[in-house]
């Protein structure tokens, strides 16, 4: 049973090795002649101004928080789906109540304007 998971570690190591080799190949064979102009951040040809890492819109955090909230629910739904047939009507009704609560939360966030981009 647990043995089924071991190949996943094997492919993780193989995949990491392939990716690392690809990057190292480029570092090994590529020329390396840095100049200050080349190292400047690309800003469509004009002289860069200000810091590259500036403040960003709070909306991105809002989306991230909403995502975590709803993604946990989705994972919950997925596990119920695998056993829905055995759980029968009782399981279906329980899940229906849960999904209605979830949808109410979704509509609330919607009406509050959390999903608007302007």
């Amino acid at each position, binding site marked *: 049973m647990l043995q089924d998971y071991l190949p*996943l570690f094997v*492919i993780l190591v193989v*995949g990491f090795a392939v990716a690392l080799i690809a990057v190292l190949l480029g570092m090994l064979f590529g020329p390396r002649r840095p100049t200050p102009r080349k190292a400047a951040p690309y800003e469509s040809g004009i002289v860069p101004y200000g810091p590259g890492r500036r403040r960003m819109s709070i909306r*991105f955090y809002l989306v991230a928080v909403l995502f975590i909230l709803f993604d946990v629910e989705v994972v919950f739904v997925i596990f119920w*789906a695998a056993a829905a047939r055995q759980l029968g009507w009782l399981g279906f009704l329980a899940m229906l109540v849960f999904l209605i609560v979830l949808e109410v939360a979704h509509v609330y966030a919607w009406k509050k304007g959390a999903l608007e981009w302007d």
Partner: protein
Amino acid sequence: MDAGLFWEWVIKSLIIVLMLTAGFAYATLYERRVIARIQVRIGPNRAGPFGLLQPVADGIKLIFKEELTPAGADKVLFFLAPIITVLPSLVITAVVPWGDTVVIGGRVIRLYLTDINVGILYILAVASISVYGIVLAGWASNNKYALLGGLRSTAQMISYELALGLSFVGPILLAGSLSLMDIINAQKHLWFVVLQPAAFLLYFLASLAEVNRAPFDMPEAEQELTAGYHAEYSGMKFALFFMAEYIKMIAVAMIGASLFLGGFMGPFVDRFPWLGPVYLFLKVAVWLFVMIWLRATLPRIRYDRLMQLGWKVMFPLGLLNAVVTAFVVVLVGG
């Protein structure tokens, strides 16, 4: 556990990773040729017969390119970000079966790396990780375009991951299992795309957004963001981002084919198990063709519309589809 089993895993892992890498190389050529035909051009046909050596030429060129690291970049993250991006795309197909079992030299070989009973959960988990590489690439570059592109890409990918997760619920309900092998076996007589057209559509659209393909290729909008999160990357590091995108396309097509189009199932696959990988390959090729066709046909959709489509249309639709499917499944099977 014996040593033979361990080496079997290593060989299968190597085959999967190298097949995906080769698949990436030829997916780029496939895309360029198909788009060229749609735009009434010929496309790359000089390197080798039919341009078949073009990916090799591209790869050699990229290896010998100078790699720039911008001043003020976070050196460690800048180096790690391409690897973190490409790694999930290489390992995500580990749970997708290529076929049933075959006998080679008296040894029964299963034509899949492993069939864990939470295969779908593994796919969702690994798909989430690829977001990290992109946001780290945008952050580490110390470039305004890259940062904005990385953030946009992250917001887009996590928004569509909800719809993606909900589109899995339909096939899981019908098969009653999270294992991809069980889901494929449940489609022996009827593909799930017939029973779950809404989930199939949701999966198709959400997966396009997930792999940042047209018309959802917002993070790479060249006019506004000059290529987005990989603006500062060059040489092989850039190639890894490119590789991640195309391997994710292949992975998404493999997973979609397994969930909705019967995976490796096809005529006579019971008697000739070697036909399994062939059928899967054909389905992936058709799926990729549709993705390329969409890119050649549709304009990019605006960012606010993109987010609204994900949150206001696809997410509720996914919930509705899950409820209706569950109702029917319980009604028939309960």
